[in-house]
C-alpha cells in the first residue's frame, strides 16, 4: 500500500495546477454558465494538448493507458476547479464502452478522435421512471431492419449531451435478451434533443428517438454484454465523480477556512467562535473521510462486480453525505453571502448536490450497500 504519487501522476497534477488554477474562480464559472455549452471549447482543446483526453485511451490508439487512479487524481483537480467540461462522459464513460466494443478497429479510431479533442460522446441510458441504478433498457427499442436497426423510445437527462457529437444509447434489441449499446450521431434524422442546464451550470438533455435508422455498425456492444459493460462504465464514472466531489470539498473547506478568519462579527473574526470552529472541524472530518472512501472505491475498482459495486456504493454513501455536510455548513458559516452567486461556496454547494444525485443518489446507494451486507 502506497499513497505516494507516481511520476505520471505528479506530472498530471502539475499540469492540472497550471491550467486550472487560473480559472478556478467565480467570475470564470459565471461566465462559462452563460455560454452555449457551459464550458470553454478552447480549454477543452488544452485538455487534449495536455494529454488528459488520452489518459485512459490505450497506447494502441495513441493514448496514455492510464489507470483508474490516474483518472481519479486528475478528477480531484477538476473538482477543485469546478470544471464543467464533459470529461467524465467522454473520457471515462464513452472510453470504457468503446474499449469493450465488438469492432475494435472502429473503436480505436473513435478513441483517437476523443484523445485529439475532436469528438465528444455522451451516454444516454436513463429512462423516466426507471430505477437510477438499473441499466437494462425498457422503453427504448432497436428493431432489426435491413442491414441495420431502427431505434425508437426516449431517454432523460443525458449528462453533457448538448455538446456531444455522438451518443451511446442503451436499447433493448427486439427479439433478443438484454440491453445493447448503440452509437448514434447527434444529427441523426428522427432524433430530437431537448437541452437544458443543470443547477451547477453543466448541461444535459432529454432525447427522443422517432424511428432513427442506424447502420449495423452502430451496435457497439450486443445485448449479451451491454448491461455488464454499462455497469462497469458507470461505476468508473462514479469514481471519477467522487474524485471531483473530494476535490470540491477540499477546495470548499479552504475557502471557508479563509472566510471565517476574515469575516468579523461582534468585533471579532467569526473563526474565533467555538461553534464555528466545530463546524469547520466537522467539515474537515467529512472531507477527510470522503477521501478515504475514494481510496476504498479505487482499491476495489478491479474486483469482481459484487465486491466492486458494494465498495462503490459504500463510498457513494459516505462521500454523498460528506458533500452535503461540507457544502451546507459552508454556506452556514458564510451567512447571507453563501446564498449569493458571487461567492464560491454556493458554486461548490450546487456542484456537490449534482454529484450526489448522478448515477444513483445517497438513498439508492445506501440500499444497495445494505443489501450487499445482508444478502
Amino acid at each position, binding site marked *: 500500500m502506497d499513497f505516494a504519487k507516481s511520476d505520471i501522476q505528479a506530472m498530471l497534477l502539475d499540469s492540472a495546477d497550471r491550467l486550472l488554477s487560473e480559472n478556478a474562480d467565480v467570475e470564470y464559472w459565471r461566465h462559462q454558465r452563460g455560454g452555449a455549452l457551459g464550458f470553454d471549447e478552447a480549454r477543452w482543446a488544452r485538455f487534449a494538448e495536455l494529454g488528459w483526453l488520452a489518459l485512459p485511451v490505450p497506447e494502441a490508439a495513441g493514448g496514455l493507458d492510464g489507470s483508474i487512479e490516474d483518472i481519479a487524481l486528475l478528477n480531484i483537480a477538476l473538482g477543485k476547479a469546478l470544471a464543467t467540461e464533459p470529461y467524465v462522459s467522454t473520457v471515462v464513460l464513452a472510453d470504457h464502452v468503446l474499449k469493450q466494443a465488438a469492432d475494435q478497429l472502429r473503436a480505436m479510431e473513435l478513441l483517437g478522435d476523443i484523445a485529439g479533442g475532436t469528438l465528444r460522446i455522451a451516454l444516454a441510458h*436513463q429512462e*423516466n*421512471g*426507471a*430505477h*437510477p441504478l*438499473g441499466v437494462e433498457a425498457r422503453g427504448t427499442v432497436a428493431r432489426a431492419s435491413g442491414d441495420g436497426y431502427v431505434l425508437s423510445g*426516449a431517454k*432523460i*437527462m443525458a449528462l453533457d449531451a448538448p455538446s456531444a457529437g455522438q451518443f451511446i444509447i442503451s436499447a433493448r434489441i427486439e427479439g433478443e435478451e438484454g440491453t445493447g449499446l448503440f452509437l448514434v450521431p447527434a444529427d441523426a434524422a428522427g432524433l430530437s434533443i431537448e437541452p*437544458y*442546464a*443543470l*443547477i*451547477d451550470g453543466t448541461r*444535459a438533455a*432529454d432525447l427522443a428517438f422517432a424511428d432513427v435508422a442506424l447502420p449495423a455498425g452502430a451496435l457497439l456492444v450486443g445485448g449479451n454484454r451491454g448491461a455488464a459493460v454499462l455497469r462497469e462504465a458507470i461505476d468508473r464514472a462514479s469514481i471519477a465523480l467522487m474524485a471531483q466531489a473530494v476535490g470540491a470539498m477540499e477546495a470548499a473547506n479552504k475557502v471557508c477556512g479563509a472566510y471565517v478568519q476574515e469575516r*468579523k*462579527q*461582534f*468585533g471579532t473574526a467569526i473563526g474565533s*467562535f467555538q*461553534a*464555528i470552529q466545530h463546524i469547520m472541524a466537522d467539515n474537515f472530518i467529512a472531507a477527510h473521510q470522503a477521501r478515504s472512501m475514494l481510496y476504498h472505491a479505487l482499491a476495489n475498482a478491479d474486483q469482481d462486480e459484487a465486491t466492486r459495486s458494494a465498495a462503490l456504493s459504500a463510498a457513494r454513501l459516505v462521500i454523498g453525505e460528506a458533500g452535503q455536510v461540507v457544502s*451546507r455548513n459552508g*454556506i*452556514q458559516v458564510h*451567512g*447571507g453571502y*453563501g*446564498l*449569493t*452567486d*458571487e461567492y464560491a461556496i*454556493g*458554486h461548490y*454547494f*450546487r456542484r456537490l*448536490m*449534482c454529484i450526489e*444525485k*448522478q448515477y444513483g*443518489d*445517497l*438513498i439508492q446507494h*445506501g*440500499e444497495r450497500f445494505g443489501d450487499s451486507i445482508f444478502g
Partner: protein
Amino acid sequence: MELRLDPDLETFRTQVRAFIDRVLPADMKERQRRKVANNAAVPDLLQWMRILDDHGRAVPHWPEEFGGCGWSPMQLFIFNEELYKADAPEFDWGGTHMLGPVLYTYGSDYLKDKFLPMIREGATMWAQGFSEPGSGSDLASLRTSADLVDGKYIVNGQKIWTSGAAHADWGFFLVRTDKSVKPQRGISFLIIKMDTPGITVRQIPQINGEAHLCEVFLDNVEVPADQLIGEPGMGWTYAKFLLEHERTTSSFIYWSKRELARAKDIARGETMDGRRVADDPAFRARFARAEADLLALEWSVLRVLAHEEFDAPEAAAASVLKIRGSELQQEITMLQVDAMGAKSLRFFDAAPVPPPAPTDVWPDYAPGRTTVALINRAATIYGGSKQIQKNILAKLAFGL
C-alpha cells in the same frame, strides 16, 4: 387542560375556506402554485392584498381600529393555514407584519394615517433595511447614519439583504442617529421613500437564479424628519418589539405544512421501476420523521399562542420555533428535491413567466422545487443565525 380543538373553530375554518375559495382568482392561485421563484410575483401579491382588503381581511391581526378582524390567536392561525393551503400569494410581511405593528404602536398620528392604509390596501411593496455588510447577526453594530440637519435626516450608508427592494416604493430602515451613546441606544427607525435621490439599489444574484435580495446604497439621502417612527434612539427597542410581537411567525408552520403536503404528492408521483418513491423504506422513514417533527412544531406554536404556563421565559419557546422551523423548512424542501432524484438537478428559470407546460417526465410540480430548496439554506441564517439562536436559548433557558 383541554387539548382538543374547540368545535367552533372548525366552523370558522369552514367559513374561511369558503371565503378564500370565493375570492382567490383561479389564475392567481395557479400562478402561485406553479411559480418557479421562491417569492410571489409582485403584481399578484399586491392585487391579492387589495382583494383581501375589499373584504376587510387584509390585516386581520391588527387592532380593529386600523382594519383588524378582532380574531383570537387560534382564528388567525386557522386563517393563515388556510391561505397557504389554498396557494394564495404570501403577504408582504415587511409591511403587514413588521412595519405595521411598529407603526400602530409607536407611530405618530401623521404616520399612522399616511402609511397604515397604504400597507393594508397593498399599495406598495415595502423594503426592509436592517442588515448591513458588516453586521449580519450582530445588528447592533450597524453603521448607516442619519444626521438631523435643518429638519431633515441626511442618511448615508449601505444596507444588504434588503428583500424585494427593487420592487418597493417605500422602505423602513434602522439607522444610527446618535454615535455618542452605546450601540443599541443610538439606533432609530426611519421610513424612506425608495425613489429619493441618492438611493441606489443593486439586486444580488442568488444561487437559485433569483435576485430578490438587494443591496441598498444611501448617499446623502434626505428624509423628512417626521418619517422617523416614535422616539429617536428607540429603533433597537422597536425592532425587538417587532420580533417579539411575531413570536410564532418564524416557525413558518403554514408554509411548511403546505410544502410537506407537496412533498407527499411528489413522492407518490415519482416512481422507480414502478414503485413509488413513497414506498421506498429509507425515503418513507425520513418523511415520517419530518412529518412527526412538523407536528411537534405545530404543537409548540399552539403552546405559544395559548400562552401555556412554562418553566422558562416565553422567549425560549419562541427561539425553539425559529430553530426548528428553519431546520424543517430545509428538510421539507430537500424531501421534495430528493423525491425527484437526479431530475431535481434541472435548472428552471425563476423569472416570473409561466414555467414550461407539464409533461410525463416533468410534471407541474417539478419546476421550482430546487429553486426554493437552494435558497432555503438561508432559513438558518436570516433573522439571527441558528448559532445565535442557540446562544440566546442557552441563556434564556439555563442562564448560560
